[in-house]
């Protein structure tokens, strides 16, 4: 959006190396290429007036991922207008043992030897059913393999809480999967 040619050049130099990585993250979050490109463009439009701030950021990649993640959650919230349990809500972390004891292992059993294509679709559908912040956490940790510290920066939460949050998200996914395998 703004402004002088030198600022435009600076902005391009700063963000261009990260655009494809942002797109891939956006694609994982949104589930389709069109929404992914829209999301990246929204983020860039938002950041252009903040070029000077970008220049001061030491490690731009996690910073940009954080902005994209926030934009994704905001868009989703506005689009669906729904109230969901948030992964950033510390909730019932203390009750971790009881949570683990609810592991729906029996329900998941058929997944072990289900035909690959069908099982893959089921997992994607279950992932898509999760609230956006829970989906994002699973994508960052279980799919992209990011370090807990990097994930904590994106989610803006304490690194020490990532494991508990991850347990909750995985549990949600297992429940979604188990539901799909009910006769």
């Amino acid at each position, binding site marked *: *959006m*703004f402004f002088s040619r030198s600022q435009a050049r600076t902005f391009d130099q700063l963000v261009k190396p990260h655009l494809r990585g942002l797109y891939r993250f956006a694609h994982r979050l949104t589930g389709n290429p069109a929404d*992914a490109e829209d999301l990246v463009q929204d983020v860039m*439009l938002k950041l252009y007036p903040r070029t000077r701030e970008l220049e001061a950021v030491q490690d731009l990649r996690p910073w940009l991922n954080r902005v994209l993640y926030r934009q994704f959650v905001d868009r989703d919230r506005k689009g669906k207008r729904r109230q969901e349990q948030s992964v950033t809500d510390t909730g019932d972390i203390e009750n971790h043992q009881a949570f683990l004891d609810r592991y729906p292992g*029996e329900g998941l059993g058929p997944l072990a030897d289900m035909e690959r294509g069908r099982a893959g679709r089921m*997992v994607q559908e279950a992932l898509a059913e999760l609230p956006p912040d829970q989906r994002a956490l699973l994508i960052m940790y279980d799919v992209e393999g990011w370090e807990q510290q990097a994930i904590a920066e994106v989610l803006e939460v304490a690194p020490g809480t990532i494991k508990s949050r991850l347990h909750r998200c995985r549990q949600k996914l297992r429940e979604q999967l188990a539901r799909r395998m009910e006769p």
Partner: protein
Amino acid sequence: MMDCEQLIPHIEGYCDGRLDEADRRAVAAHLAECSDCARKVKAEQRWRELLRESPVSEPGSGFETRILEAVHGGGDARRRWSTPVAGAAMAACLVVGLFLGTWFIPRGGDSGPETVVGPVSENNVQTMRLAFDSGEALENVNLTIELPPHVELASFPGERRISWEVDLDKGENLLALPVRTLFPGEGELVARIRHGDRERVFRAPVTSGGEGG
């Protein structure tokens, strides 16, 4: 030896590979003896594997160019911007000559706003262009844009007043604003430029017609 109930809380850690050696051995020993639990662990490993394998495409060719051109106001990357919509008659493109004290030089000798050239108009988002000529390079110039109620900036929905700290090059500086029409109406876009204790205010009409108008 670990029983089935004791194993359950360890399944996740076992699949993550973060159990200590004693627990890992105990789990492995139980799994070797218990096919039910082995099946649970296999299912856990499988959904993780399938999740990791979920396909993600590379963006189409020209992706970076599309994004950056859209940001700079020279292109419309998104499909929803590329569908013509009848009706919106908002002044699509403005060139405003500005001067501020001795630093800003009016374009073409005219200091007032001048409506020109269009359209960069698509869907209900249009690009308004403001051009600022500066007699010298300036740092830390504050620019504030105030919008009438019937429009918003596409990238700042709901915000009526947006401020930036910017640097100006000597010569022409361009500001491209993707403006979304919310409802038909008339109003004024106000641009305030402040450098140090000097300020200039410029106003430009923003008019949008009704659907089909």
